């Protein structure tokens, strides 16, 4: 019998729209210069190689132009001089909620994080502005040798592992925003799962922006050693400010032979946040990396999770849901780089545009000539709710050589007035009918999220749909 579950997580737009006045102990000030970077390196106690890495990132950031030749001109509205690049109370994450500063603890309690941790998570990291305020894993998981700490602690406590993979999947000069992140990164997670260890419950990170005119630049590195399995989930919120906030993360995944990593994002930033994120995974032989990416919030999101299939038989997958409401632009997609024989990739993307919302799909699939037995499947479906809504699709597929197969399907549809009439005739209000139809459109993808998230997703979609018709 199928029964719906009551929403267990109370997170929605309005629930995240609050903030606390903070007196930050560490503040790099406004604007970005080499001095800003030195300040960050000093307070974090970076080793020399990290300081050099940051400086190099900074140089590349200055060199690279805004990608407005292909991306939206809205990027020009980011004023880098007005942003604060580092705000923290301290660099050490607490292992117990009791030791987390009161305002931060209260913030995460209002967002329901400690409750979720008790219910179904193997570990939680909670980042408040620039640093993790809390980071802990269940004892049983820790005993298996799983490392789950903030990136600052990861660098200090596990320098060899960290240095081996850090910046290797996404070089600092990959794009202007990965360069910026490389210069000022702080926070994010460092995860290592030893060979053969399968982490049963998800590890979760929660990113919270509290300060105005702030940029959050977390850096996450996840390494699943041979045959290991791990699921990581991230959520985020920020209060709605008058001015723009920048969130620019870099996430690198490394799946060794036969390992599996599943990375789940539910992005619900407030509508003043520029969310410009670079995410890529490196899959070795027979490894599998799956990005499940849901973008509901932000003013502009640009994010194209990728998988480099470096070993034979590796698999990459991106499942993506984007909802672009009034004034929002969700520019999302996927990159699949086939670099070995018999590698397979799958991209499924569904976007919904409503009101003046705009969704863009950009997909890149690359199979070089010398490879054999590679397969890609791409499906991208867009749903338009109103006549002002907009959707664009830019697939770039380069497949060379013999014996490689690609399949690409795209569709754009609208909810018809006859469908709405039919549902209204059964008693549903116009808005309820819209919500139901939209939830139906993404239903098959929502099923792939863990239950707690799928319930939240449905609620978020309902909230977005409210007042979108009339």
């Amino acid at each position: 019998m199928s029964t719906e579950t009551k929403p267990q997580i109370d997170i929605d737009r309005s629930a995240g729209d609050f903030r606390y006045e903070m007196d930050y102990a560490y503040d790099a000030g406004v604007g970005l210069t080499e001095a800003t970077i030195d300040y960050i390196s000093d307070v974090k106690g970076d080793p020399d190689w990290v300081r050099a890495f940051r400086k190099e990132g900074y140089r590349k950031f200055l060199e690279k132009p805004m990608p407005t030749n292909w991306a939206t001109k809205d990027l020009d509205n980011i004023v880098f001089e007005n942003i604060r690049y580092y705000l923290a109370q301290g660099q050490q994450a607490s292992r117990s909620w009791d030791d987390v500063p009161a305002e931060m603890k209260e913030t995460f309690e209002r967002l329901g994080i400690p409750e979720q941790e008790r219910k179904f998570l193997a570990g939680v990291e909670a980042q408040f502005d620039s640093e993790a305020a809390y980071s802990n894993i269940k004892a049983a998981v820790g005993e298996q040798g799983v490392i789950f700490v903030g990136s600052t602690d990861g660098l200090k406590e596990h320098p060899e592992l960290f240095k081996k993979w850090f910046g290797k999947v996404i070089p600092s000069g990959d794009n202007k925003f990965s360069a910026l992140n490389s210069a000022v990164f702080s926070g994010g997670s460092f995860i290592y799962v030893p060979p053969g260890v399968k982490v049963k419950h998800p590890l979760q990170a929660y990113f919270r922006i509290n300060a105005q005119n702030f940029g959050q630049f977390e850096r996450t590195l996840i390494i699943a050693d041979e045959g290991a399995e791990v699921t990581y989930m991230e959520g985020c919120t920020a209060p709605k400010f008058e001015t723009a906030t920048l969130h620019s993360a870099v996430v690198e995944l490394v799946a060794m032979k036969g390992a599996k990593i599943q990375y789940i994002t539910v992005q619900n930033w407030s509508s003043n946040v520029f969310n410009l994120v670079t995410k890529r995974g490196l899959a070795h032989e027979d490894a599998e990396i799956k990005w499940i990416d849901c973008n509901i919030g932000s003013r502009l999101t640009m994010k194209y999770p990728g998988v480099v299939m470096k070993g034979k038989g590796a698999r990459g997958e991106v499942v993506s849901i984007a909802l672009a409401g009034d004034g929002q632009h969700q520019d999302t997609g996927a990159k699949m780089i086939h670099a070995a024989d018999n590698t397979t990739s799958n991209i499924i993307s569904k976007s919904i545009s409503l009101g003046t919302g705009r969704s863009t799909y950009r997909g890149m699939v690359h199979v070089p000539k010398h490879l054999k037995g590679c397969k890609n499947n791409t499906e991208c479906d867009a749903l338009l709710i109103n006549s002002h809504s907009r959707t664009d699709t830019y697939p770039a597929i380069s497949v060379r050589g013999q014996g490689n197969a690609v399949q690409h399907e795209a569709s754009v549809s609208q909810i018809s007035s006859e469908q709405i009439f039919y549902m209204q005739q059964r008693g549903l209000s116009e808005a309820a009918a819209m919500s139901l139809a939209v939830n139906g459109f993404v239903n098959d993808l929502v099923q792939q999220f863990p239950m707690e998230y799928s319930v939240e997703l449905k609620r978020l979609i309902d909230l977005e749909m409210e007042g979108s018709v009339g």
Partner: protein
Amino acid sequence: MPVPSLSILDLHASIGDKPILKGLTLEIPKGEVHAIMGKNGSGKSTLAKIMAGHPDYTVTSGDVLLDGESILGMEPDVRARLGLFLAFQYPMEIPGVTIANFIRAALQSRLPEGEDIDAIDYYENLYKKMDLLSMSRSFTSRSVNEGFSGGEKKRCEILQMAMLQPSYAVLDETDSGLDIDALKIVSAGVNSLRGPNIGMLVITHYQRLLDYIVPDKVHVMSEGRIILSGEKDLALKLEAEGYDWVEKEYQAA
């Protein structure tokens, strides 16, 4: 206190500039089953949509009363929650929304805010009604009307009617696209819902359906009006002699 009824009073309606209903009057008392017959293009299906509040049509004069209350000017969902049900000739597909969730949402819409349907009672009731219509349990997890055969779509309409328990139901060409076995099942389902608490208006082109759903009254519609009303044997006469004689004889009147 008059007998509760669904009454249509001198209704005129148009789509754009084109008049479709031209003074249609009809009363369906609760507890009775009436049939409207007529040629294609006589406005039968349009009448059903106008009663349900389809936004494409404009009512220019006249009224539709549900138990004495005018429903014109109400949104389609308000009319539905008041007790008006339309079984569609061409039910719409709603991809990704299961039948179980759809009917549940429809029932939920009738409850006051903060009240929830009891899931166990709901499924018990749903399965009972499905058995009545010889529907397999697996039906509940299929998306509404998506990939359904003609017969499945019509059965699904009657299932929704059985679950929502309307006080008045309009069945628009429910027999179209049905083979004889499906027709029997659907008719048996409709007949099981007949009773003192529901009035039904069965719209059909063919007498065949009325062999299985025997009406209390039969009305003939032509060019946007009811031109003749009679007992159930009128349907047989129409079947035998066609519509032309009625139109010739009564159109002018």
